[in-house]
């Protein structure tokens, strides 16, 4: 059984304009020591997926209408408590996109890192503050003891994100959810933060769920990838399978839109034409059909199931149906 297993998750938001179907049947699972990357463009439902599982989206207007999520076999949609303990900050740690606004401006960094230890481990304030300084040292913040007594506005962006990481791993969680951890940081700091996360994973053996829209980050960090589009997982598999044996036209489109080091006309960036579908009324067929260069009649009428290939590689595309005349292998070279 996987450490964290999510099946057929559906999340909706009730708004004045109608119901937004933000997440529409997402499956993923992650094992100990493993890194899963969830990639996709802005608004595809990556963040909503993990935040709804963690109970961080406001309900109402948000609502989980279907699906299950199990952590070590415990249902965590019904209850965030396992054996009398809140899973959040305890078994599952989270770091967020913008460290500047994600920390409380009127509380010292140390006190914020100490908070989960006081809540979940019953540490005294003094014990927790000492541990917070150790954790800051662990995420390579110099003069940790002094820094722990400072406020967020006295830290740089990179240091704030390190502090967020220290806070998320304070109770040694078995899963770390990183929601675009490096998006708000400049490139050199990004690399440092990702290396830090990776090295902590090596020491603790925690699982990481990494949410990003940066394929470079995925290649650097992840073992498996789920490519999301319009609230669905379009393709999932190992990094090698998804990157080098891409089986979904959307993944191929993303790769072509990604800059590389190669020069010449052949490597010009190719944007994906069109825009994502309206999630107030999602299309009946495949949600990528309107933008896909390989659209067939069946795509417009029926939403495909995921077709499984070898080693857990799967793609939600009719091209993989046995009756389809186009050979999916031809796509790989595209």
């Amino acid at each position, binding site marked *: 059984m996987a450490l964290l297993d999510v099946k057929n998750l559906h999340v909706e938001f009730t708004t004045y304009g109608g119901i937004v179907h933000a997440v529409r049947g997402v499956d993923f699972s992650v094992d100990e020591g493993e890194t899963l990357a969830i990639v996709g463009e802005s608004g595809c439902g990556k963040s909503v997926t993990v*935040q709804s599982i*963690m*109970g*961080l989206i*406001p309900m109402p207007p948000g609502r989980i209408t279907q699906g299950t999520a199990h952590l070590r076999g415990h249902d965590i949609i019904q209850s*965030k408590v396992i054996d009398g303990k*809140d*899973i*959040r*900050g*305890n078994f599952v*740690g*989270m770091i*967020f996109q*913008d460290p500047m*606004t*994600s*920390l*409380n*401006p*009127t*509380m010292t960094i140390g006190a914020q890192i100490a*908070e*989960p230890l006081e*809540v*979940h481990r019953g540490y005294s304030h003094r014990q927790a503050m000492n541990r917070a300084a150790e954790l800051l040292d662990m995420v390579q913040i110099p003069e940790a003891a002094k820094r722990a007594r400072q*406020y967020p*506005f*006295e830290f740089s962006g990179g240091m704030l994100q390190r502090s*967020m990481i220290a*806070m998320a791993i304070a109770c040694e969680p078995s899963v770390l959810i990183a929601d675009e951890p490096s998006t708000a940081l400049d490139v050199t700091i990004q690399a440092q933060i990702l290396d830090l996360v990776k090295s902590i994973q090596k020491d603790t053996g925690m699982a990481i769920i990494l949410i990003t829209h940066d394929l470079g980050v995925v290649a650097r960090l992840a073992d498996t990838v789920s490519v999301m589009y319009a609230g669905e997982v379009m393709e999932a598999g190992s990094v090698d399978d998804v990157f080098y044996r891409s089986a979904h036209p959307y993944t191929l489109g993303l790769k072509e839109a990604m800059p590389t080091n190669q020069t010449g006309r052949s490597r010009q960036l190719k944007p994906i034409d069109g825009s994502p579908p309206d999630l107030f009324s999602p299309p009946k067929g495949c949600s990528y059909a309107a933008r896909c260069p390989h659209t067939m009649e069946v795509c417009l009428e029926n939403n495909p199931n995921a077709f499984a290939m070898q080693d857990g590689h799967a793609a939600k595309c009719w091209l993989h149906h046995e009756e389809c005349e186009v050979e999916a292998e031809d796509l790989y070279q595209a």
Partner: protein
Amino acid sequence: MAWYTVKRLIQGIITVWFIATATFWAMHEVPGDPFIGEKAVSPEVEANLKARWGLDKPPLEQYWIFMTNMLQGDFGISFAQESRSVNDIILERFPVSAILGILAIVFAGLGGVLYGALTALYRNQWPDVLIILLVIIGISVPSFVFASVGQLILVVINQILGFNVLPVAGWGDISHMLVPALVLGLGTMAFLTRLMRSSMLEIVSADFIRTARSKGVPAAQVFSRHQLRNAVLPVITVLGPSVASITTGGFVVENIFGIPGLGQSFVLAVQQSDYGVIMGTTVFYGAFLVLMVIIVDLLYAWIDPRVRLE
């Protein structure tokens, strides 16, 4: 910070000078003088009185004398309460007003934060609607109405119960202070409630609240440690200026409840054209308010770590 403080103090002195000057001339332009009483006074007596108080001198000279005396900390003596120095009157009466004002500010501050937090917690539910309705009344109804209504209610309660739960007027111990202070603080409380509500609603969707919840911090603790603490900052900012509205409100409330504070003495002085007391009280209150605003500015810098280092 030191230079800033000095700059603010100089600005404050100029402000007080302006207040003193404007009051002095306005007072002299107002018809009537301290010696118009119920009894007719013969022209000779009036001339004698004027000469004695220096009111026969040209206004510019009077202004000069007043200003030089004031700079030496001497506000002169009262016309109506013969031979009592204005300084003495202020010293005797200001502590009463100050106690009332401080109590009113405490009521307003605590009430504003509490009710503001409640409205935000029960957003769009009945406690919110009810409190906001009361807030509108609190902001739009002047304090003298509340004072009279408050007295009336107190009278009725005392009558029904057959003994004095709280005294209706007068001054003495804490029981005399509660109702006037509440009435005095009501308008400010309403204003602070509204401010606190919008501040709370803004903070509740802040990223750091989500972070706190992602750490598994219990809801009550998220509320007190993360939400309340940050939402209260704007409330502290306006506490300074609200000292002004409490002070001016005090003039009315002190009169209605018969409280021997500086406000009551000021109103009486205006009615009697008691030049010395009017000038002294105005300059004193002006300086007091200017000082309060400066103190709150410096205080805010001390409370919010982000302002401190700039």
